[in-house]
């Protein structure tokens, strides 16, 4: 069993949507206290749905690849969709995770749920 899916390899060697959106409509940052991996997402929203997303990340290659995949995947999602994402879905979406990489799915779920919360928060309160 290979350590990385083709999808994850493609994304950590050629990450998509790297960086931070200036003046994003929402953002979220999470960190895994155990392995130290961190992900930061910024998104722009139109019609209640994400139309653009960027990431910054630090951690293992699988975490970087997962973050990149997520930025493409969530385009078109609304806050309810984000809130429904679970680890199994992420794992499947990234083409599978090897044992010891499950924290990548957990981190992605956490950052998406945090993003959903941020999106649901009324603009003014920011």
């Amino acid at each position, binding site marked *: 069993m290979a*350590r990385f899916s*083709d999808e994850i*390899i*493609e994304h950590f*060697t050629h990450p998509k949507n790297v*960086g931070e959106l200036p003046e994003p409509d929402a953002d979220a940052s999470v960190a895994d206290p155990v392995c130290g991996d961190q992900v930061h997402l910024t998104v722009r929203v139109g019609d209640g749905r994400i139309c653009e997303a960027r990431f910054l990340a630090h951690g*293992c*290659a699988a975490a*970087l690849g997962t973050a990149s995949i997520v930025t493409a995947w969530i385009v078109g999602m609304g806050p309810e969709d984000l809130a429904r994402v679970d680890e199994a879905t992420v794992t499947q979406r990234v083409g599978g995770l090897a044992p010891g990489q499950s924290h990548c799915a957990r981190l992605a779920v956490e950052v998406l749920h945090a993003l959903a919360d941020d999106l649901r928060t009324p603009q003014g309160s920011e």
Partner: protein
Amino acid sequence: MHLQTTYEHRKGVNDVTCPPPQRGRERGPALYFDNNATTPLLPSVRAAMSEAMETFGNPSSVHFCGEAAAALIDHARAFVAVLLACDPEQVVFNSGGSEGASSVIVGTGLYHLRDGGHFITSAVEHPAVLRACEFVRELGFELSVLPVDGAGRVDPGTLQTVLRPDTRLVSIMHANNETGAFQPLYALSRVAREAGVPFHCDAVQTAGKERIGLAEGFVTISGHKFHGPKGVGALVVRTDAPLQKLIFGGEQEHDRRAGTENLLGIVGLGAAAGAARARLEDPNEQFRRKSIGDRLRAGLSSIHGAVVNSPTEGCLPETVNVSFEGLRGDTIVDVLSARGVAVSSGSACHSAHPDPSHVLLAMGLPADRALGAVRFSSSCLTRRDEVDEVVEITEQTVRQLYATWRSVGTA
């Protein structure tokens, strides 16, 4: 089998190696810079092994088939003896470096089991030595683990003060597998000798690359680190210090190590030793080796964010250990692997919790710098253009990773 200047066959490992990764966009030839982990077989070693497949007798058998097999082993033993500047009878073939180190350390401990005593090693040893020493501690011996300085070196004066009348063994490596740093081997072994204490040198990283003229004690070598096969090595015994045997059975290897001999492996080890000896004697090859090493070190240290962990002086030219500040070594290794470059991170991490290298920590490096370490190691097969290419791909990869995480130092 003839002594061959096999580096004539240098073609880059690309021609003889494992396939580069089949995925990702980069499918160019593989760049193998993990020679401290293991090396490809030299063509002459392959040829010797293939030829030896014709001979199959048990070297212990008294009939003609046995004699033919025994002759191959004698031949290989002579080559190893020349490389290590010892007598053939002092060469004990075994299954590699881990067995070699374990057989000396555990074998010494079991021999002295009733009387107990004291062992000395250093903080930067390979796990084969460290774990074996921890086991003899569990058996009831005391263990001193000597500290190292910022270059990773043990001070002979410290060894002097730690030696005791009941010290059973001092085990210190020749050059470190992670950084390439040499120990002051002759000074250390002299201190032990003057105290009458047996000395063991784990020379797995230097055998076949450097001369090892240790006149006394035990020396452990492993074939696969110098273009021989994996799973075969030798212990050189230049002392009458007693060892308890660990592997029982027949009286093979002068009754020091039982078991039907790894005939093909030993033939390969002998061929690799012959080729290594030729390289050691060739000034051109020695020049080439150092210039490849210098080029690799200079190229990598010029990358933004790089800081070299291998000492500048007293270091195997083949080894450059470098940290990229704020990045994680294991991540760099994985991204480089996807790009067809094989290197290794200082830490032998197989999980989501990379442990910083015990070697770099013992040298006093902060944990995050240790976590950012990547080891590049060349061999006699590495070409100059491969060095340039690996530096370029590493530079791109590091730049990409910095872009993915704000900027140097913010991690």
